[in-house]
């Protein structure tokens, strides 16, 4: 059995690139105005001999500078761009191939197409079987994966530095020469339908799908990245092949972060990828659908008898290209992106409603969602929701305190160090530069831009991005136990709920007097 932990907030870096993640990760954890701890009479003081050694808080020496890497850009003769970072690191090299064909490029009736294309790319390449490809990665001790996110499809491999040549070759096979075998297609189709069914049992998954559908209407972000049972069932291998054939060097980037010399890394990638050409027609222009101005206030997803309910409160917010990216990221760190965040201090530490309360902005090519999140004991759903909404309202009503501003800066500055500490996440971060058309020195200049922010800047950004009174409130849990609680908190002023099922689909409301 795995160990049990203080908090699940680990690895929820708010800076992490969203483009390689197929399923939105749980929103990063974080706190509220640290309410003064209750002050009971202190226990009688038992002196400990020698305790003078710890009686004074040490001074903090000056912070050392961190120069984030700026990738070297190389353009191959076929137009494919390489982003190369040579660094000593700790022995691991990561290579990623990203193409700007993620779920946002799925046809409206075929959600899951990019994701199923990714699955087929992993199911055998260059006339080698799925097991042979996976076995080749194992023999290198490397990790290989293909995944579709909202804005990009990513093929990634990572392993020890000395395996670079074999890793690049394997990556090129998987990225450029998938077998697209019909027998594998039938199997993967059945498997995905089963996985989508299995996912319905997870409260958080049900809440997340309902949130997307309610907040985004007909916009591509409304649709599940992995598709729906119906869309996957109706998909054909021909559609997958056609989607794959739109991939071309003008839409893709190769990222490498590793310990070999820059020249060596460039040469190996050039040899493997410079002959690549698009095999089909160029892709259709991206969807012009806009985010709907109206959205339901309250959405319920019924999970009978579950002892906890998932709360997700949020709305479409800002794209990655927004000038508010940094102030909103800082705001999130203080609101719900750290252990001492306002949400976590309030809902977990002060009230004991939850194991953790978090929030997150998923910045993307489109205005991705802001979501505040907590999984709470069913009986306290309404009071927990009241506290969560209260904290959200404060973000637009009040500026951050000087301490909060300074904490947010310090946390984000070190999150950046940690993001670039591991080759895999560093490669993801470098890939995001290209997917979101950001300058090569984005990370190098980040800390200075962070330093110049004021509390007023952050509040103004919050007011532009967030309208707490118009956020979608999703509650996924035991409807019989949850619904009667809501009117008991009149401050919530919630209307009758829209009902959705565990797949995010609208459910007609039961007629009055009807059962359940």
């Amino acid at each position, binding site marked *: *059995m795995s160990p049990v932990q203080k908090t699940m907030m680990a690895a929820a870096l708010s800076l992490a690139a969203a483009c390689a993640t197929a399923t939105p990760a749980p929103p990063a954890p974080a706190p509220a105005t640290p309410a003064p*701890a209750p002050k009971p009479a202190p226990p009688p003081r038992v002196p400990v001999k020698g305790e003078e050694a710890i009686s004074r808080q040490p001074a903090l020496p000056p*912070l050392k500078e961190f120069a984030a890497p700026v990738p070297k850009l190389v353009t191959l003769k076929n137009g494919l761009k390489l982003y190369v970072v040579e660094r000593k690191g700790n*022995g691991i090299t990561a290579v990623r191939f990203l193409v700007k064909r993620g779920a946002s490029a799925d046809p409206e009736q075929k959600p899951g197409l990019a994701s199923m294309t990714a699955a087929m790319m992993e199911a055998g390449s260059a006339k080698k079987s799925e097991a042979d490809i996976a076995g080749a990665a194992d023999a290198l001790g490397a*990790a290989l994966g293909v995944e579709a996110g909202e804005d990009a499809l990513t093929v990634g491999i990572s392993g020890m530095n000395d395996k670079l040549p074999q890793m690049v070759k394997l990556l090129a096979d998987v990225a450029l020469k998938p077998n697209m075998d019909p027998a594998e297609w039938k199997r993967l189709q059945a498997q995905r339908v089963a996985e989508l069914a299995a996912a319905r049992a997870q409260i958080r998954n049900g809440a997340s799908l309902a949130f997307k559908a309610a907040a985004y209407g007909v916009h591509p972000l409304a649709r599940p990245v992995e598709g729906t049972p119906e869309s996957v069932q109706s998909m054909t291998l021909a559609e997958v092949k056609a989607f794959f054939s739109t991939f071309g060097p003008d839409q893709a980037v190769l990222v490498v972060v590793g310990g070999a010399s820059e020249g060596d890394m460039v040469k190996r990638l050039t040899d493997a990828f410079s002959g690549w050409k698009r095999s089909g027609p160029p892709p259709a222009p991206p969807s012009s659908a806009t985010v709907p101005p109206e959205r339901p206030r309250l959405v319920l997803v019924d999970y*009978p008898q579950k002892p906890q309910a998932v709360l997700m409160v949020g709305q479409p917010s800002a794209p990655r290209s927004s000038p508010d990216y940094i102030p909103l990221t800082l705001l999130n760190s203080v609101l719900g992106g750290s252990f001492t965040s306002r949400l976590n201090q309030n809902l977990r530490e002060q009230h*004991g409603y939850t194991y953790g309360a978090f929030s997150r902005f998923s910045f993307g090519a489109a205005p991705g969602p802001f979501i505040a999140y907590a999984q709470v*004991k069913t009986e306290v759903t309404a009071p927990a929701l009241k506290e969560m909404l209260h904290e959200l309202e404060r973000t637009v009503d009040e500026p951050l305190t000087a301490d909060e501003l300074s904490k947010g800066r*310090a946390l984000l500055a070190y999150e950046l*160090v940690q993001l670039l500490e591991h080759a895999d996440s560093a490669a993801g971060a470098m890939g995001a530069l290209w997917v979101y058309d950001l300058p090569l020195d984005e990370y190098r200049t980040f800390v200075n831009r962070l330093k110049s922010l004021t509390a007023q800047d952050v509040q103004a950004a919050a007011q532009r991005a967030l309208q707490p009174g118009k956020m979608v409130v999703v509650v996924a849990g035991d409807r019989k136990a949850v619904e009667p609680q809501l009117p008991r908190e009149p401050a919530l002023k919630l209307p009758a709920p829209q009902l959705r099922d565990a797949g995010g689909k609208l459910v007609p409301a039961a007629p009055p007097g009807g059962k359940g």
Partner: protein
Amino acid sequence: MSLALALLMAASPAPPLSLHATATTLDNGLTVIISEDHSIPGVAMDVLYEVGSKDEEPGRTGFAHLYEHLMFMGARYVPYPRFDTIMEAAGGTNNASTSNDFTWYHESGPSNLLETFCWMEADRMATFGLEMTDEKLSTQKPVVLNERRQNYEARPYGTADLVTHEQAWPEGHPYHHTPIGSARDIEAAQLDDVKRFFARWYVPSNAIVSIVGDVDTAQAQALVKQYFGWIPSPKKPEHPPAPPLPQRAQTEVRRLTDKVELPKLILAWTSPPYMKPGDSECDVLATVLAHGKASRLYKRLVHEKKIATEVAAAQASHSQGSVFEIEVMGLPGKDLAEIQKEVDAVVQELIAKGPTPAELEAARNVIIGGIARELEGLTSRAHLLSVLQANYGDPNTLHKELARYTTLTPKAVAEVGRKYLGVGKLVVEVRPEPASADDASKAGGSR
């Protein structure tokens, strides 16, 4: 065959992994490990106490983990909630974990936080139990109970995990109960329990402090000595020996239902303790059986027979004994008996003949690749050093850890497989609950 294998092994030397640290022991018994790495301006500290859920008293299951939560509720010079606020104000973060054997606390942040980390960890090592109150206890109980609900009671198959654990270890064995414990025992914890646990287990002689990052070894050693060296300590506490763990003569079956859509099969065998003979062979068996899409169970059940969506296997090792576990998620409506028949056949084939030389080599590289990833980050490297120290009595033992895998042969792996997987096992079957009549979401809510 053996010659071919020898050649194969000669052609694939162990990958170049290295790790160097300096270990010292303070007069009070605290072990201090420092490893410099100046590639980023950061530092990670891992404070490991050799106490876990196996050391809990009767009626207090889950206590070691509850105690871990309480450790953030303040001590004498860093009262609540200053441990977290001081750390985060300077860009640092922390977490902590509890397993059957160990409890470890870890923080990481800009390298200028090193002295602050020392101060805060030393404060709670020295004074935490003295400053404990009922109020602090009552603040963390609901958080832990919510953790239990979130990770077990409300999570699909979470109940099956608890049942598997409790059935895999016999009553009376210190691993019989789970680290999360029972809700009733968590509720029952008292102030005196905390003070007793603090006095017995949270003493310098029972702790290891590992520091990795952009630090100077001599300076870091001096800081640790300054902040921790004065803390009085009794001699290292002893753990009551665990009774030997019998293998099952007969296979036992437990059948459960859960609010899930897919059937799941869990098989568990008693296996050798961590680092004892047979442990690394079991790691290889698990890797050959279920790591990735080239694994034997994946190929047979997912690819060929098309009866499962997912397979997993692990040798979950602990100091007093281990469990070797296989999990299979079935496709909708597939018969768990048919799934088990296939799993049994695959296991039998593997333990009869052992892995092929190529499979063994790949498994070894997968496992060593995993260790290479642990070495990559400061936090996981600091923890690895603590674990090497706790198990080998010396942190500079990575080569021993690697040799456990590089010296294996297919024959040895097969023998261990026959010995531990060729006997009775625990079978846990989880089936979807029949849809209930008033379940509006499934019935479409149209009534």
